[in-house]
């Protein structure tokens, strides 16, 4: 079952197209990785999922219901942190949880507060005011607030920002626990592939508001498949050959250059097809990993 179904959403801020015709689906119980550089449109997309920003066009369904028409019903089952962990500096961690539990009409016992704070490693700072917290601690508290009402869908926007390596590992473990042990659907964004690839079962890369690549993380990171760049004097012709042949499924979206994620054993066949079709090949360059591809598409385009 689709927990999130986004269809052709766009968001314009004046002349700037922050999100451009983006579509994707997130299945129940999945950890969905949403990857992109800073300013790629991740947070705008997440804000649209939380009804904080109105899409310029397109539709969003969560739990099979239109977000535009069933907003409150949907948000009852969603917990989120969005970008920075901004909180009330004059309240303690414990008070934050009690406050947001009250907003969600949840009666929360002190033990449950303590338990939630323990989950994120803040149990020993429960009564301290947030103004004394480091960025990492605020981030953990933000996650605790997102979990306080036991939501079905958890949206985490850059949850490891400001955390030290131990904190990053803790958050990773927490995401895995939430997904595997509690059956939650987790939508997690990051600008670091290395972070996402360790937790996400599905991956989407966004750049300049557009979807660049989407797929199963294992599949995308499959060592049996290589990311290759076709270098030729005529990219148009090379593309035509690929689309017409049996390689179109391997094509990766890219504004410039021709990239494919292709099983290693098919690279010679691809080479042969291109030469036969008269493509003046300069080379077929193999990229080492999805990270190379991610870095390349997000650095030059």
């Amino acid at each position, binding site marked *: 079952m689709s927990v999130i179904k986004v269809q052709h959403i766009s968001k314009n801020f004046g002349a700037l197209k922050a999100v451009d015709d983006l579509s994707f689906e997130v299945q129940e119980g999945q950890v969905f990785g949403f990857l992109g550089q800073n300013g790629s449109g991740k947070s705008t997309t997440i804000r649209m999922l939380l009804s904080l*920003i109105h899409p310029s066009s397109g539709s969003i369904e969560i739990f099979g219901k239109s977000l535009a028409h069933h907003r409150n019903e949907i948000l009852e089952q969603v917990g989120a942190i969005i*970008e920075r962990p*901004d909180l009330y500096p*004059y309240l303690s961690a414990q008070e934050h949880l009690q*406050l947001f539990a*009250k907003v969600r009409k949840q009666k929360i016992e002190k033990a449950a507060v303590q338990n939630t704070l323990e989950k994120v490693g803040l149990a020993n700072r429960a009564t301290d005011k947030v103004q004394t917290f480091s960025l990492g601690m605020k981030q953990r508290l933000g996650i605790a607030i997102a979990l306080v009402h036991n939501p079905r869908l958890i949206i985490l926007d850059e949850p490891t920002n400001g955390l030290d390596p131990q904190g990053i590992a803790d958050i990773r473990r927490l995401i895995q626990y939430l997904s595997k042990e509690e059956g939650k659907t987790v939508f997690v964004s990051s600008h670091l592939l290395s972070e996402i690839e360790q937790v996400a079962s599905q991956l989407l890369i966004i750049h300049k508001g557009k979807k660049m690549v989407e797929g199963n993380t294992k599949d995308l990171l499959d060592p049996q498949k290589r990311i290759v760049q076709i270098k030729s004097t005529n990219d148009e012709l090379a593309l035509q050959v690929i689309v017409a042949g049996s390689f179109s499924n391997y094509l990766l979206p890219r504004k410039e250059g021709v990239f494919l994620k292709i099983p290693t054993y098919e690279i010679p066949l691809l080479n042969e097809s291109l030469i036969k079709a008269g493509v003046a090949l300069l080379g077929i360059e193999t990229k080492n990993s999805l990270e190379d591809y991610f870095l390349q598409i997000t650095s030059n385009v």
Partner: protein
Amino acid sequence: MWSLISVELYKIFRRPRTYIAFGAIAALIVVIQLGLKIDGNSYAAFLMKDINDTLTVDGKVLNGYLICYILLQLLLVHVPLLVALIAADMLSGEANLGTLRLLFSTPYSRTQWVFAKFIAASVYTILLLIWLAFLALFVSMWVFGTDDLFLMKSNYVVLIEQNDVLWRYVGAFVFASFSLLTVTSLGFLMSSMANNSIGPIVGTMSAIVFFTILSTLNIPLFTMVKPYLFTTHMNNWKEFFDIKVNASNEALYGSILNIAKIKNSLWVLTLHIILFVSASIIIIKKKDILS
């Protein structure tokens, strides 16, 4: 809805800034009361100097009721500025802090949040007014005692029997609550348009000063708009202290000279409150939360 209001009240009263206004009012009132306690008789003599030849007043002119009237005249001009400190920060302060997105991603409509915040800001305003009433009226009554209320108007004097005064203050404070709620709603409107606290606070204060100047200027062009300005009506709590007289020029117990003026002012203020809050809701509903 109640849970949202209680959450907003909790946040208001956990912020140190909230108590600045309570402290400022207490400081001002205590200073004035102290001054009048020490040198009140000279002040009373100064007030009475023009009528001493024609009128003899028995009893205690400088009593708790008069002190309260003097305090209200002085303070009800400044209290709106203190109200603006909180009201104009209710939405923009959260936007500035980045917590507005936390609130607006909960299963409540933005209209519900705006209402809850407005009600919480209104509770703060009313509490501030009750604090003002307690210090200005009850503490003054305790410190200075009570007697008939003797007021000097621009071209006449008003003498109200002491047992006809207290209910007038109740009326005046209820009226003042409408005036201050108008300021609260104006601050709220300013707050809905900005993502930082300073702009709306300064904006609200500037709007009050600007419209007060328009309300007091007797230029024909402005005379046309005066009846529609909230600042024209904010000080009409004084109407509770204008009393009807009979043919022998004796005050009529329990009367108000121009009750229609009070009713009209209450209507104008209420309409302003509705207008400002509705505009805030429309702005917030359309707003993309980018902070």
